[in-house]
């Protein structure tokens, strides 16, 4: 055996050793549970929780439309809730983006201590408990809360506005907790943006708008895409924000899943819902990544 072969072998062994902890963790805590969920989603729900080991495709049927007629009905409400969740998640992505993008440029232009302080402020909300933070919004938005009191005493409105228990409140809550996840990837991208390219663009006759569209936007696209994905996924599955700020009026798929696992103890149905969310996320992300790759191959022009 040649020495090159032994080196290669040794390298491979090192690689296996280094990757082992991660692979084991990933399979024990992610792949195996995922498999269990997949199996459960095709099993019949037990009468008092748990599962009966019978082939039962109607968990999906209840959601998408082929129910077991005598017992469970197809309810378009599940699809409606899912579409509303998608809408909320997309709005969250858009709002966090609009907040984060300019802010990222602003912070990246700061110097030294000021910059570190700004970054610290952005991560500051993480230091408080999530429930406390959401509950604070409840206090701010309710009819006798801060905003309504201020607006009323300023004489701008007569009656308190309905700020709570609607999509608006849920989106505010989502944007509030997820903005750092949009900001950080964009910031990392903007921070390494080579400013001399902006100069070069100007130098070649591009006005500020053209420079933005042809240079700044394409070069920060990876950050925007990364931020969008890691905001979109938790927004779609979130159940804490809608249950606090959406009340009983705004349901998201996350609430349904939570309820079927914890309250109605219908594990197979919960599993089916969870897998449908996952599938739609995967499909959306793949489509987006594909479009991006194609755009890159074409050369963004």
């Amino acid at each position, binding site marked *: 055996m040649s020495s090159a072969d032994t080196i290669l072998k040794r390298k491979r062994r090192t690689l296996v050793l280094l990757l082992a902890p991660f692979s084991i963790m990933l399979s024990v805590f992610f792949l195996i549970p995922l498999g269990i969920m997949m199996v459960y989603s095709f099993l019949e729900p037990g009468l008092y929780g748990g599962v009966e080991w019978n082939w039962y495709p109607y968990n999906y049927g209840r959601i998408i439309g082929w129910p077991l007629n005598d017992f469970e009905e197809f309810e378009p409400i599940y699809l409606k809730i899912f579409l509303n969740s998608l809408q909320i998640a997309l709005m969250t992505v858009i709002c966090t983006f609009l907040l984060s993008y300019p802010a990222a440029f602003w912070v990246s232009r700061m110097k030294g201590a000021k910059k570190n302080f700004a970054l610290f402020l952005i991560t500051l909300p993480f230091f408080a408990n999530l429930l406390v933070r959401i509950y604070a919004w409840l206090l701010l938005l309710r009819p006798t809360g801060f905003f309504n009191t201020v607006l009323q005493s300023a004489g701008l409105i007569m009656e308190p506005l309905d700020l709570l228990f609607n999509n608006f409140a849920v989106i505010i809550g989502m944007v509030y907790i997820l903005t750092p996840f949009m900001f950080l990837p964009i910031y990392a991208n903007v921070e390494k943006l080579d400013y001399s390219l902006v100069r070069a663009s100007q130098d070649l006759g591009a006005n500020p708008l053209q420079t933005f569209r*042809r240079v700044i936007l394409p070069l920060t696209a990876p950050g925007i895409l990364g931020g969008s994905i890691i905001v979109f996924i938790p927004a779609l599955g979130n159940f804490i924000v809608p249950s606090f700020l959406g009340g009983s009026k705004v349901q998201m798929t996350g609430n349904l899943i939570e309820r079927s696992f914890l309250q109605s103890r219908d594990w197979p149905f919960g599993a089916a819902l969870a897998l449908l969310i996952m599938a739609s996320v995967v499909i959306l992300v793949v489509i987006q990544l594909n479009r991006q790759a194609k755009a890159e191959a074409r050369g*963004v*022009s």
Partner: protein
Amino acid sequence: MNFLNITSARKAYRTPEGGFIHALDDVSLNVRNNEFLTLLGPSGCGKTTLLKCIAGFEDIDSGNISLEDQSLKGVPAHRRPFNTVFQNYALFPHLNISDNVGYGLDVARVPKKERADRVEEAMELVGLKGFGKREPNQLSGGQQQRVALARSLVLKPRVLLLDEPLSALDRKMRENMQIELKNLQNSVGITFVFVTHDQEEALAMSDRIAVVANGKVQQLATPTEIYDEPANAFVANFVGTSNIFTGKVVEQNGKNLKIETANERQVLATSDHFNLGDQVQVILRPEHMKLSPDGNEISECCIEGTVEASIFVGSEMHLHVNVGKGRTAIVHHRHNRGDEGERIEVGTDVKLYYSPNAAHLIELVED
């Protein structure tokens, strides 16, 4: 009509400590149409700042920059008919080579057909035909530099500004590119303002050189004038090597002067501009000084000294000669093949000869 004219330009930057750096301190410069003008100066002297002010990336605090007598005040960078080749090339990493070259045409909405032709032509001009589909990071430094050049030239600017475009290249490549750039400038007929801190590069390529130091233009002249008649001690030292002796004219015989230097040596020079009693600086280039350890055959003009160091650089020996009071003169002594016997040892007493015509006199300025 003036072409590109800079009058009394000033630019100060605020330092973090609260002071000011005068990056441009009353700079006046007249760039002629179609010339190759080099800004030569040490690091930090304000060359890049001047280019940025011309290109429109920075505003001057006072003074004026005008093109064909039209002031450029308030004209933003993207509307100025100048293009820049940046020191780091600044190629767009998300565009391939032909889109990089076509960028300026795209933003100007040049029709497709014309764009394609002009891109093709520009790539051919810089010798990169067939590289259009490559990405910038798939090119060598020299090739990237050509792309940056093509990207600017394709727009047919009135002035091309080049900020140390060759400094990232290795020596051989740099010498090739010097020739190519000069030829290119001749053939396209565009004014080049070229920044470098390499004096050989400046001498080799330029029609005129502006030597810049401390935010001021020290001298603006042709390469030969800069070398043979430096305006001050800074230029004399920065461009080539100089031996500078400070002294006073003690004898005058028409044009012929005898100068007594601070280290109590007497040197001869010819000049129309100085008279008996004037304080002067005598500048002697090392290659104009010859040495002959015993004879007296060249002229009566000589300085005595002792060799302190001799450095062999291939074509020449560089001798450091102590000429009294700790002053050292540098002499370039021609080295001929097989001259082993003539090798000059450290410690040898020598006499340095030169023709009085070779000595350049400048006024002594107190500072």
